[in-house]
């Protein structure tokens, strides 16, 4: 974004993710300013989820830099076999700097929480336990104090916070039910509640409206805005539902075949010719 005066929560620079000979994300650069809702859109297979996985440590990007709150958290450049087969750009840009590749839990500890495209709740656990596990990360106990119940005060605090969070999200009446027995919309909401339990600064939502009807999608938009205010969050989301994206995003990045093809506020993106082409598909000149 042009406005550099505001604080940038997440800064992605020249990120390339290559699997064998396939470049899934190609030289992606984008900024997510604090307290904004930013969307990453693109057709199926454009590399959106791969980009998310690079940010959250699931994948280690082949090349590029990711900064969170001004601090580099992920940095890599192609080496060895990767360097020979590397198809992207800026291969030398980060070669002199040390590489950083934290695991997903370390990323989460920094304050980046995520949800998944296909809901990944812990199926044998109750709604309450699902949220409670997310509190485990910030607990100071060790395995001995936990086993011998030396952490009673902390355990109680974790349970109280979990309960409070469930109440805020309107899930407290389901707390003892199995997470997977909830209706679909509530499972989505629970997944977000679980992510909120890790005390994030930045929330990554991977297709939060997938499988939702228009009414639910509308409610989701309000919900995302609401939690942004309540928990002072920055939201970065991937979405297919254009209604939702145009409704809630402050700024949109569009990618296709791994590369950025457009960016701008919703109105600009909506009328952008390349975006329309990418989404609707146009006959290419050399196509028969």
């Amino acid at each position: 974004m042009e406005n550099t005066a505001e604080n940038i929560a997440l800064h992605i620079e020249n990120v390339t993710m290559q699997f064998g000979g396939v470049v899934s994300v190609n030289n992606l650069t984008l900024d997510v300013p604090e307290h904004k809702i930013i969307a990453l859109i693109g057709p199926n297979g454009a590399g959106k989820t791969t980009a998310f996985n690079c940010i959250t440590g699931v994948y280690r990007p082949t090349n590029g830099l990711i900064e969170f709150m001004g601090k580099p958290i992920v940095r890599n450049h192609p080496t060895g076999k990767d360097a020979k087969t590397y198809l992207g750009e800026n291969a030398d840009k980060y070669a002199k700097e040390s590489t950083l590749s934290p695991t997903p839990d370390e990323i989460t500890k920094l304050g980046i929480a995520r949800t998944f495209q296909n809901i990944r709740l812990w199926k044998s656990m109750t709604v309450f336990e699902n949220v409670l596990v997310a509190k485990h990360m910030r607990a100071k106990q060790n395995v001995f104090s936990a086993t011998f119940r030396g952490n009673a005060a902390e355990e109680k605090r974790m349970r109280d916070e979990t309960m409070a969070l469930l109440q805020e999200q309107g899930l407290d009446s389901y707390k003892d039910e199995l997470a997977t027995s909830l209706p679909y919309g509530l499972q989505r909401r629970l997944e977000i509640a679980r992510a909120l339990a890790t005390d994030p600064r930045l929330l990554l939502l991977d297709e939060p409206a997938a499988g939702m009807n228009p009414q639910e999608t509308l409610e989701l938009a309000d919900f995302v805005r609401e939690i942004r205010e309540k928990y002072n969050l920055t939201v970065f989301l991937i979405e297919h539902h254009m209604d939702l994206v145009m409704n809630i995003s402050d700024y949109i990045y569009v990618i296709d075949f791994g590369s950025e093809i457009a960016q701008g506020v919703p109105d600009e993106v909506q009328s952008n010719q390349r975006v329309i082409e990418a989404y609707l598909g146009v006959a290419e000149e050399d196509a028969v």
Partner: protein
Amino acid sequence: MKKSKNYIPALTGITALLLFVVLLENISSIIPGLPSVFDPTSPLFTVLKKAAVYSLVAVSMNLLNGFTGLFSLGQAGFMLLGAYTYAILTVPAAQKDQVYYLFGGCAFDFSIVDMFEGIFGSGGAGGAFSMILGVLIALILAGCVAGFFAFLIGFPVLRLKSDYLAIATLGFAEILRAIFQWQKLGPITNGANMIKGFPTFSSFNITDASGNVIVRLSTFVPFLITSLCILLIVLLIHSSYGRAFMAIRDDEVAAEAMGVALFRHKTLSFVISSFFAGVGGALFAMYVANAQAKAFTSTMTYEILLIVVIGGIGSVSGSVLATFLYVACSEWWLRFLDSELYFGNFKVPLLRNGFRMVVFSVVIMIIVLFFSQGIMGNREISFKAFRKGKNKQ
């Protein structure tokens, strides 16, 4: 406060069980003329002792396989480590030359029990106290050695997933068994020969001066140790760490994304499980009164795996229940299948040596095919009062 009250029925239950065991094994000397089943030599007590030992190992395997979702088959290996650690540390120095006669004595001339006897005296109460303390410390050290080896092999092995992990841990157990039988290590492990002469369960019987048993405690002791260990495992499972383990089992990717340090927690579960397998191995050595590497085969691991599956993967009480049923069947109730049986002149067909294993295998196949959830699934036996207290909360 409410929460701690929930443990009272469970603790009462365990205490009652332990008292019952003491009563059971002494009842034949209190009331004479009871059926021979209550004699100290009856298979009942063999089964109870073995099942007590096995249930600890089964629960420790369940912690790893059932609660953390790591399919490991190294249990026998860790039991072996525990058994040898216990045996080497507790054989009295005076007996070492005799036990290790093939190797001209033991390279490791030390016994924890002797050490305490040096402090508290070797006769009477001092001797008993020395033995109890020595055995206790040796048991803990047995667990620690197993846990330490688990920590070491956890580094390369825990990065593997599902079947590969099983193969790697199975291989580890087999390698250990071979190493412990290696003649060159004879001065420590006594080669392929057994180590014996250490305190066993019967050493805990209270005797008078002439060696007659006054109070039998040889079944009580394994029950006590196993109950304590299982209690610890249950406490762990119901703690924040236990929930993190279950999250890993249910969905590793989600667990990691929610801040559960995957490798650290897997290592933790592996080490703790192996610790208790080591203690279980030491108890097994006490039960058979010797430690010998060739006893800890992969068959033993499969036996324990079967118990876990029959009891229900992810159920502690299921594992315990299944252990007692399994051991009772294999050591006692199905024994008749192994001997020829005549009704008058009619010889019952098929019954002969080894037929027990055939029937046993069929029963197990039926269980695995039609009751794949096991006896308990992932539920637990709980007291009604416990349930009510939970609902009130």
